[in-house]
């Protein structure tokens, strides 16, 4: 039976790996170059038996001007998970579409497009609304999205809102004047 370590070793040899983290014996994350991602995913699916795409997600590294995209794959034969990570530019945020490899990829990519503003040219229906109908302004999962400002502009305070500062409240009640 193939092991996760062997699979990772093969990826290292064939495509090159920039970073590797063994989180658990059955969960390893590898970081590969952006232009190698589709080849790595194909290889993992067709050769290394990582046939199931669990999810795709992204992380905003605002300070470094980068997005990280993570593809999480599962191998049903040896019950291990392999995470494939890559970094893309935040300014020109686009990634090669992987919709031809798994049917559900198009949906994940549509979600990432909406939530992070990452484009996947050629991905079916990628420009359609996913969950945020009529959303304007910067995508909400970007870290420069100002949650408080958005909720101030969008939602009201319910009736009867009023707060107390603990320091002042205690001064009023406790201090020995």
């Amino acid at each position, binding site marked *: 039976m193939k092991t996760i370590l062997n699979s990772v070793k093969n990826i290292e040899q064939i495509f090159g790996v920039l970073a590797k983290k063994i989180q658990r014996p059955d969960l390893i994350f590898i970081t590969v170059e952006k232009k190698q991602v589709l080849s790595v995913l194909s290889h993992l699916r067709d050769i290394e038996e990582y046939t199931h795409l669990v999810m795709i997600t992204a992380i905003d590294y605002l300070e470094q001007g980068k997005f990280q995209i993570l593809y999480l794959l599962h191998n049903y034969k040896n019950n291990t998970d392999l995470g494939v990570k890559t970094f893309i530019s935040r300014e020109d945020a686009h990634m090669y579409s992987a919709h031809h490899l798994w049917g559900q990829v198009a949906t994940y990519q549509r979600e990432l497009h909406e939530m992070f503003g990452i484009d996947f040219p050629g991905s079916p229906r990628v420009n359609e609304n996913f969950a945020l109908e009529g959303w304007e302004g910067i995508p909400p999962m970007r870290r420069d999205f100002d949650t*408080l400002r958005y909720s101030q502009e969008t*939602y009201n305070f319910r*009736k009867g*809102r009023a707060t107390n500062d*603990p*320091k002042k409240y205690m001064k009023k*009640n*406790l201090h020995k004047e």
Partner: protein
Amino acid sequence: MSLKNFVAPFYVWKRAFEKPLTNTKPLETRPGAAAYRGFHVNDIEKCIGCGSCEEICQNMSIDLVPVDGIETKDGDSGLRPRIDYGRCCWCALCIDICPTGSLNMTNEYTWLEEGDGDVDDKFIFTPGVDKKNWNNLELGYKRPVDYEILEYSKIKMTIMETAERSDSFIEMVKGYSKEEAEREADRCVACGICVATCPANMDIPEYIKAIREDDLNEAVRLLYKTNPFSNSCGRICTHRCEDACVLEHRGESISIRWLKRYIMDNVSSEEIKSSLADEFTKNGKKIAIIGAGPGGLSAAYYLAKLGYSVTVFEAKEKAGGMLRYGIPEYRLPYDELDKDINYILSLGVKIEYNIRIGKDKDFDDLYKHFDSIFFSIGLSKPYSMRVEGETLPGVISGLKFLDDVTMGIDPKIGKSVAVVGGGNVAMDAARTSKRFGADVTVVYRRRLEDMPADLEEIVEAQEENVEFVVKAIPTKIVENKGKLYFSWNNAKMVEQKDGGRPKPVAIEGDITTRTFDTIISAIGQAGDFSFLPKEIEEKLKFKWGKVITDKSRQTADSKIFAGGDVVNATADAISAIEDGHKAAIGIDRALRKI
């Protein structure tokens, strides 16, 4: 239209008697996942209303509100979080940051309420206070065990190694570096719960913020607003604020005292002067202060700032009171105390040294020539042990011993010393004796945990190899060939029926006798009011040996104010400083008749 078209709809009727091909949808609702971020619950007994949840909330959906039946008290604002579910986005940051761990989420996620005119108000609720059907649910989002937003460990303070300090009077605590202080200051959530616990109500969160922002001039201004002895307090304060610190609930409190010291260690006397830029015009009124301890000089400082001419009468040759003559140099070096005193003197406060009121100068004289009098004379009369042999040479009081050491007099204690008592004076006497090379035994009538001394003093004394004999009631002292034979009756603790603290009761016949060169008695002290003329003493009111004053520290004689250990029950430096401050305000109000 063919006949078939006409009849076909009736064929479906035959299906009416067959088993359906679809499954019935279960009607019960699906429970949320085990760690679902559903509706909030709050353990209101555990919650102290620090407001960290409100502060971190990204949507301003949390208010802190008073709750019936929850009292505002030391360490608890009495407020509890109320959440606006029209704004909450279930990010759970409020749960992650909660320093007491009282706020959590359940996996309940449906809340239907009949609509009426006031429907808006229903989805704003106080978890744990308002009755909700999810209040007792076990499942739901909790902060993961190894995940903390806050830092719960103190930045370690460098303290001189035991071996090095046992025979040295050099200050043992080294103080924080800039980097350490800023990291420690970073841990503070600025809830302000500590402020009410500080006897002087110092603005702790603000001066910690000034450290974070590296604005020590502003920090000094904040300190002096309520405390002109910050350099000393940064070293020896009883730091009750730290007991109230919100981080204490799941970790270690902020080292508030060491942060105060960091500020004062890093500003020179010139910088203190330029930061404070105290300016005032003299109002022509004169105030007499008796006792140049923290209480008296604190009053002097705030009175001088209000424009009064202040004269302080001090019986000893130097100022500082118990800070100088009671607290040993390894905890508070004299030049650090002088830094505080010198700034106060720079405002024109005069001290007349070696003047004992009632002996070198009459109280009546002050009463006649000054507009108001404040006395803060401390407790100088040691309690008697009431045992045979107490007056033998070699038996001395803790106060006298510490006094002599401060004045550079060799106390000649010999090789073995017994210290009787369990308070801070006893610890200071024991540890000072150790530094003179003696083997030291502390003899205390109750248990270690009953000792009124600060825990850190007890621990440090133990580290320095001071021996502790507890549950020992002194019975007699006998002298033979220069040696003191000290006997005590071993005791057992007996619980009190009325719920009072357990009492030591002598075990009959169980007597221990050991020999010592010196016995230091430090079982407490009382105020000495013999300086007061008879008619004044009769006019003032006393209870349990303390002077009774009103909130402005005014005594029963409207011209006389009092503070410090002879007034307050806590009898520590910071309380005396607060008394001085309050008396200064009180005197000003009384003289300006407002």
